[in-house]
Structures are given as C-alpha cells and as structure tokens.
C-alpha cells in the first residue's frame, strides 16, 4: 500500500451526541462529526474545553453511544455489537484519561492496576503479575518498586504514567490519549512522546491524541482536526497546523499560545468574548458571534466542511467560493 492509502482502522460518520439539559433543553456536544483514522497514524484533535473532544473519544472507546451517526472500527459498525464481539472490539481500543485519579481504585496496588486488563482477558497468571508490572513500569520510566505502592501517594505526573502503562499493556491497535501528557513536565512528556512514537512505528498502532499543546500536536499528528462547539471546523495535515491553517478560529487559537520565544512585552492575545453555551449554539456558523471576519451569510447559513486543497478541509464561508 502506498503512503496515502493506509488501512482505515476507524471511521466516524456524522456522529452526533446530544445530552439532555436543565429546563428541557438540549446540549449538542457533538454535531455530525466525521473523522477517519488510519493504521500507524496519529489524529490530533484540538479545541476549547467543553467543545466535545472527550465526548467524541468516549464514544470511540464504547464508553458512550452516539445519539445518531455511525462509528466503524475495522469496518464493523460498533453500535450494533453485543456480548463477546463487543468485548473483543473494545480490547482494540484503549484510552488514557484526562484525569487518571478517577479511574484508579485507591485500594489497589500499582501492580494490580497495571495487570487488571491483562487478567480480565485471561492473558497472564496471577504469579506473573510482579514481573509484568515491573516491565510495564520500566516502559514508562518509573522505578520498579512502584509496583507495591498505591496511587494516592504519587504525584500527578507519576499517576499519569501508570495510566499510560496500563493502556499499553493490552497492545491495543488504537490508543486514545485524552490530555494524557498535560500533567507531565516537558522532559518527561518528551520521553512519553518518544515512547508512543516508537510503539506506533513498531506495532502500527493508530493514535487519537487530544492535546491542548498545539505545538506538541503538530509534532506528532499526521492529521489534525480543530473542533469548536461540537463541530469540526478545520482538518489539516499535521505539519500545517500553525502555518497552513486558515479558519478564523484556528487563527485565534494560534494567537493564544504561550511560548518561551514569545514577545513578553505584548499582552497575550485571546478571544475576548465568552464562548457561547453549547445549549444555544448560534444558527449559522458556530463561531459567528466571536469571529472578526463574520459576514451576513455567516449568521444565517451554517458552513460545512469542504476540501480546499488535498487533505485540507475547512468549514467557513470565506473559503466557500460558491458564496
């Protein structure tokens, strides 16, 4: 297969998730999200908090179900799966959460946490736990004596590494990292990134990376998607994240990045206005109320994603030549 025809491992088709909210209102957390993931590649997702990134990946990991739309993993629509087929397909998709403290039982030792998924699938025997746990710890550069500790007595960054080690234990084909490195110092982060990249190369795993660090996303992602208020507003080849992107929201994102090379004498730019509530997403373009390039058409008609150049899709009337 050639580079740009890699096997599709996951495909989300017009995935919508609506939550009920107070006063009989509806919260549209994901609005017809369509994204594709290829074997051995990384899909980066960036966007404001609350824009629906976690909601989306929770459905990929089968922790939640779309209100409408389809998710295909290795060609199968996962919403129809039950029992052992569901269990089997779940094993392919592992997730590292934003907040690992929530997913660990305080009563379990690190070795039990690390080996739990392997035990559940009957892949190892109880007496192998110690050895396997020590191996997994070394993979994420933690001392092996952590095997007998409890997670509450660990720093945030150490807990995060435990979560990564556990997710990798099952050798998944799809790994979802929801803010998996944001609690780490940059030098540990770099070692985790190197680790993920080497595993990806060796085993062809596909990674969905949710990360607020746009520079880090750019360095890892083959494809990057920008989400805003439940909608995908721009999809670019990863390398273009930064320079080759043009949606007005993506530009605003870029202006808000802190970096050690920035001009410290200038105040940081960021969109001044507040994010509209996902409870009343404006008719027309979801970004209309905060966009400084907003035109009349933007308030009436919703722009859909369309390809402007190979691999680059954008949902904005500025780039819709027919308008």
């Amino acid at each position, binding site marked *: 297969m050639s580079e740009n025809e890699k096997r599709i491992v996951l495909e989300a088709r017009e995935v919508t998730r609506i*939550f009920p*909210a*107070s006063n009989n209102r509806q919260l549209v957390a994901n609005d017809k999200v369509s994204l594709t993931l290829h074997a051995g*590649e*990384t899909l980066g997702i*960036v*966007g*404001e*908090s*609350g824009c629906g990134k*976690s909601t989306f990946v929770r459905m990929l990991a089968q922790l939640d179900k779309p209100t409408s739309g389809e998710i295909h993993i290795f060609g199968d629509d996962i919403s129809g799966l039950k029992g052992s087929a569901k269990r089997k397909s779940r094993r392919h998709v592992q997730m590292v959460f*934003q*907040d690992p*403290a*929530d997913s660990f039982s305080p009563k379990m030792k690190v070795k039990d946490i690390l080996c739990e998924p392997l035990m559940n699938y009957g892949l190892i025997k109880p007496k192998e736990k110690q050895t396997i746990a020590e191996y997994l710890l070394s993979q994420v550069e933690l001392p092996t004596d952590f095997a007998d500790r409890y997670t509450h*007595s*660990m*720093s*945030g*960054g*150490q807990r995060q590494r435990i979560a990564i080690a556990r997710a990798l234990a099952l050798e998944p084909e799809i790994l979802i990292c929801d*803010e998996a490195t*944001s*609690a*780490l*110092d*940059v*030098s*540990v*982060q*770099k070692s985790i990134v190197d680790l993920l*990249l080497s595993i990806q190369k060796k085993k062809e795993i596909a990674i969905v990376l949710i990360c*607020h*660090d*746009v*520079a880090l996303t*750019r*360095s*890892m992602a083959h494809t990057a998607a920008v989400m805003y208020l439940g909608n995908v507003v721009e999809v670019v080849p*990863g*390398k273009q994240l*930064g320079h080759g992107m043009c949606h007005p929201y993506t530009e605003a*994102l*870029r202006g*808000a*990045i*802190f*970096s*050690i*090379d*920035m001009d*410290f004498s200038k105040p*940081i*730019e*960021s*969109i001044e206005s*507040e*994010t*509209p*509530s996902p409870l009343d997403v404006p008719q027309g373009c979801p970004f209309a109320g905060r966009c400084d390039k907003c035109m009349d058409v933007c308030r009436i008609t919703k722009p859909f994603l369309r390809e402007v150049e190979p691999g680059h899709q954008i949902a904005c009337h500025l780039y819709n030549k027919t308008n």
Partner: protein
Amino acid sequence: MLNMNHVTVTYNDRPTLIDFDLHMKQGEIVSLVGESGSGKTTAIRALFGLLPHEGYVSDGDILFEGESLLSKSEDEMARLRGSRISMIFQDSGAMINPIRRIGAQFVEYIRKHEKISKKEAYRKGVAMLEAMRLPDGDNIMRSYGFQLSGGMRQRVGIAMAMTFRPDLLLADEPTSALDVTTQAQIVRQMMDLNKKTGTSIIIVTHNLGVAAYMSDRILVMQNGRIVEQGDREQILKHPQQEYTQKLLAAIPTMEGEAYV
C-alpha cells in the same frame, strides 16, 4: 509577606521536599517549574496546611504576615484557607464533588466565609462564574460536577478560589487541563487579580511560556530541591544548571521538529 524558611517535608520517614527556601513580598508572582514528582505540589500543600496525613513539615518554618502557620490550630488554618490564602488544585475533581450540584457547593463555600443569605451567595456565585467568562452561569450552578468538562470544572474551581480576593493565591497547574484560549483568559484573570488587589501568586506549571509570561521569579525544581532560580531573562536566556537546559530543550515549539 511570606517566608518559607528552609522547609523540609517528610513522607513516611522519607524527606521529599528538602530545604525549600522562599521569601515573597506582597504582589509578587513566583512560579515553580520542574520535574514531575520533584515536590512542587508538596511545597504549596505544606504552605496551605493540607499535607496528606503521612506527610509533615520536619524542618524549617512557614511565616505568613509574620506569624507561623505551623503553630496555628486546625480551626485557625481553616479560617485562613479560602479567604486570605486560596488554592486552585492540580486536579479540580479534588475540589468539586462530581455528584453534587455546583450551585450547592459554591453557596456552601461562600457561606463558610461570609455571613450572607443563600440567595445572595447564589447570586455572588453566578457573578463570579460570569466574571470568569463561563457562559450561562445559571445552568452551570444547576449542573452536577460530572456533567461539566474537565476544563469547565477547573474554571469553576478557579472562580471559587478567587471569590474573596485572597492575599495569596496558590495555583497548582491551574491551566494544564485547559485549551490555549481558555488558558490565556485564566492567566489574564489571575494577573488582573494581582494588579487590582495586590494578590501574591505562587503558580506551579509545566508550561514555561506561562511561567515566564506571568512571574517575577521562576524556581526550577528537581529531586525535592530548588536547583536554580531567577527572572525570565536569567532562566530562559542564561540557564546555568544542566537540568534547566534539558527542560528548555524538551519544549515542543511551533517551529521545532515534527516527528512524523
């Protein structure tokens, strides 16, 4: 205003934070950066009087406005906390109960420190949320913790911590869970608070850009110790220690190398 004199914190007989020495004037902003597990959270928890039970200050003293915090009773500390010294946690889940409504928690927090009616406290809460640019404060007050996204929970936690315009704000990775636009807003909000009310801030962050942008002084930590400190210019442009240099080299940049 604050003197942490050679503070050592020990967990289960193991000294974890060693000889931590920090002196701050009113209105100063200091950031702690460095290795994961190096004791940054431990340092500010010691100051806040909220070390886990297996940890204690085994050496040194902590003076706030000239008074030792270590000799204060639990009651006295509880009164200081949340009004004169406030903290924003690394993991906001610690502060916000997922299965209670935000409104109930916010009202309870306000009424713990100020004698006002529930109605007034509720209104004050909504106003704080809106000052933090959280849309539809009323709906947020009626939501349960678990219904908010990680970033939104964090911003609610920050709004709560800022309610009483504390003299000292301790922020443990307040923006790690936030996107860049929200991060920029929160940073600005903290700096506004600092300018308007002279609140001093200690911020722990892994984002050296944020540290450099906000603070008068940056402390680099490794292995329980402060290995280097200085202003932005000194740390970013003329780092002396190998560890600081390694840290700077590991920062991903928009111009830097792409791995794929």
